[in-house]
């Protein structure tokens, strides 16, 4: 698909909006539908679109396998890390109330952090899975 000028241009035009929308979904999940998981999926899908149009190689230059491995782990570690932080602050595991002076604020912060963790891992996993399938077909 790399030679279709229309696709290339449209993709280029769409990309920022897709990624922006992903971020919106990520951070607006507290108020409307959405959250880390959906945002991760959209972000991953946007990236996959890029890979489809511009070729796997150029996509892999943006996100090399090693970096993806780190990101997959980082999201999960962020989630569990939040849990450990609440433990260290004297609460039960994942008791976000401990993260700030006011329990409700702490909750909000905690939810924000874990949703971020979810988003990162989901996006990275999707892209990894896609790359693995795609590069399998190349030889």
């Amino acid at each position, binding site marked *: 698909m790399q030679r279709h000028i229309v696709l290339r241009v449209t993709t280029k035009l769409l990309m920022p909006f897709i990624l922006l929308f992903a971020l919106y979904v990520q951070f607006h999940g507290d108020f409307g539908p959405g959250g880390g998981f959906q945002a991760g999926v959209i972000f991953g899908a946007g990236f996959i679109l890029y890979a489809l149009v511009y070729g796997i190689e150029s996509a892999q230059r943006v996100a090399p396998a090693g970096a993806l491995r780190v990101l997959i782990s980082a999201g999960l570690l962020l989630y*569990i890390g939040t*849990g450990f932080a609440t433990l260290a602050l004297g609460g039960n595991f*994942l008791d976000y109330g401990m993260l700030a002076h006011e329990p409700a604020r702490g909750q909000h912060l905690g939810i924000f952090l874990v949703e971020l963790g979810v988003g990162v*891992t989901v996006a990275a996993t999707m892209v990894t*899975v896609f790359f693995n399938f795609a590069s399998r077909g190349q030889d």
Partner: protein
Amino acid sequence: MLLSFLAVLAIGILRLRNLFAVVMLSGIYSLLSAGLFVVLDAVDVAFTEAAVGGGIATVLMLGTLALTTDREKAPKPGRLQILPLLCVVATGALLIYGTLDMPVYGDPAAQIHQHVAPRYLADAERETSVPNVVTAILASYRGFDTMGELAVIFTAGIGVILLLGRPRKRRGGPSGGQDE
């Protein structure tokens, strides 16, 4: 109405042997059920189902088809599959039997809406300062479930890396191809 559409799709999936069409139909199935979820007030779920079922799962299956084949072999003629049919009918009958004592659809007085759920609706905003109750439960009240869910994704990710990764080395992969 939507439900009957779904039923038609499901039967189509059962009958068709062109796997490409089957995968497409299953994508549509997911999108339609996402529509149904909106009708049933589950907007978060609808969003996710559309993105995941209609999006990722379909892409994955198409990728699989590209690497394998898109035709299903015709089943052997004259061989009725009685055992699976019996299994399914028995399970279905059991479920229908189970529905007989279920609360009527949408009944607000049903037990399910009385015990645990009201507390979330009443207190979630005050306790977590998040107005989307689904997010509040997902990330806080049942945050540990979500951590487990993230671990499941993580597992799938490393599973795919283990199974499909590094095709350059060793033809047929590290664990395939050698008979005995």
